[in-house]
């Protein structure tokens, strides 16, 4: 159960956020007309979304490097990012720490690459043991491309 996104692909659906009692879903859609007008047709718009409670500030066309392998997704999947706390234009910011209602914006990302970080080794020293323990590390990395970002 991942907090922060759900899959858009029909054949493979993911957990939706609404079940977790997101306060934003219950509240009414805010009027973001002023914000929208100042974004030059959503060209100058940024959003801060949260994934696993970690904020990421993105604009359209950005690549998000996640230092882990996102569960149950494959390359090419489209994700709807549904935990957005901030939307901003050059002049205005709309912020709601509980999450902005999903109808107010559209933020999708596609999984572009699932790869690894370069290989490195981690050394651990134990007490009263003269040898170093060596651990090979090659952690996973998931790259998302912000596909669509606009204020509705």
């Amino acid at each position, binding site marked *: 159960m991942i907090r922060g996104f759900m899959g858009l692909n029909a054949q493979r659906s993911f957990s939706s956020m609404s079940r977790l009692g997101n306060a934003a879903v219950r509240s009414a859609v805010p009027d973001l007309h002023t914000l929208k007008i100042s974004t030059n047709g959503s*060209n100058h718009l940024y959003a801060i979304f949260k994934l696993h409670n970690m904020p990421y500030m993105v604009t359209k066309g950005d690549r998000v490097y996640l230092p882990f392998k996102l569960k149950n997704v494959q390359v090419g999947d489209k994700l709807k990012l549904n935990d957005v706390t901030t939307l901003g234009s050059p002049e205005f910011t709309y912020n709601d720490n509980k999450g902005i209602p999903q109808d107010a914006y559209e933020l999708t990302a596609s999984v572009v690459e699932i790869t690894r970080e370069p290989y490195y080794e981690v050394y651990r020293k134990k007490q009263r043991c003269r040898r170093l323990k060596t651990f090979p590390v090659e952690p996973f990395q998931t790259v998302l491309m912000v596909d669509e970002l606009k*204020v509705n």
Partner: protein
Amino acid sequence: MIKGTIHQTWSRSLGVVSRRSYHVPSINKALKTEYDTINDYGSYKNNVFTHRLPESTAQQSPSLVALHSRLNLPSKYSLSTLSQALNLNINDGLVNNFGLNTLGKNLLSYYVSEHLLVKYPRLPMPIHNVAVDSLMGHETLHEIGKIWGIQVDSSTKLDKYLSQESEFIKYGKLRFLSEQQKGEVKESGVHELSSQESKTKIDSSFISDEAQAYASAVRSIIGGLYTHTGEEATKKFIQDHILSRKLPLEEMFQFNQPTRELVRLCDKLNFAEPLEIRLIAETGRLSAHAIYVAGAFCGTEKLGEGIGSSIAEAKTRSVVNALMSYYLYSPLDSEGNAAKVPSDKDYKFEGIVGLGDVSI
């Protein structure tokens, strides 16, 4: 010494004469065209025998099937058309992509110029042309063809026989090299220009045959999509693959006399007040690294602002910023969305038409 000068001018003028930049129409001999009289265009007939690749054969080409599904093409798009789009050879007995290429090129130029004209109506003509090239020029289409994973069929018949490669694989590859060209031994780091390539040579750059072939294949695939699925799907495809690319418009401007241009522009727009460039702030002339902020103003309206390490630099930057913000303006509709393009559903004109370029 005089002789030397004469010789130089001669060779220079010869160089100019021998470069033909205009198109000379000529009949392609390979098509074995016959006609009653040369003026009677209706009687023109190509006698070269060509046939379409049977669908059953095309289905056996794994590279072709993979390309079809990689591009997410609809099942209506037949594999034989896709294979045709990849064929540039005239003489191999199979239909080539000439017609599809023309169709695709027209579709592309329509949707690209429509997009640019509506989104950036005030773009000066030279920038507009370069922007069109940036989205659908041969270099870009070559890159797109590479991204699509199209491979060149570069092995000879003998190589194929020796490596026991299935004959069907080549139907999913880009075929533009003749059997003779494939057989040529290549020296690494050396590229011999073909006659076509040397025609396109400007300074040290040229358009390679491969780039042309890739571009042609990409255009033909778009043309094929139109023939099978119609306009709506083609438009979506062009939007997804071509118009979704990032267009670095800000980097395309090169101003010679920006201040003069801005003054002319203000005249053209009938601004009541004269253009003034004012200093907004500075760190102090005697500070270690002086920084100035200048603004281009028209009365109380600030047109642009620029930061520079000298007053002249700040002034120029402010003027360039003002010009850029004028030229790169994109109109919005009443809802605050980007203005619709004419090919959209229930299109209503909400954008603007540019006033044309200024002259200095």
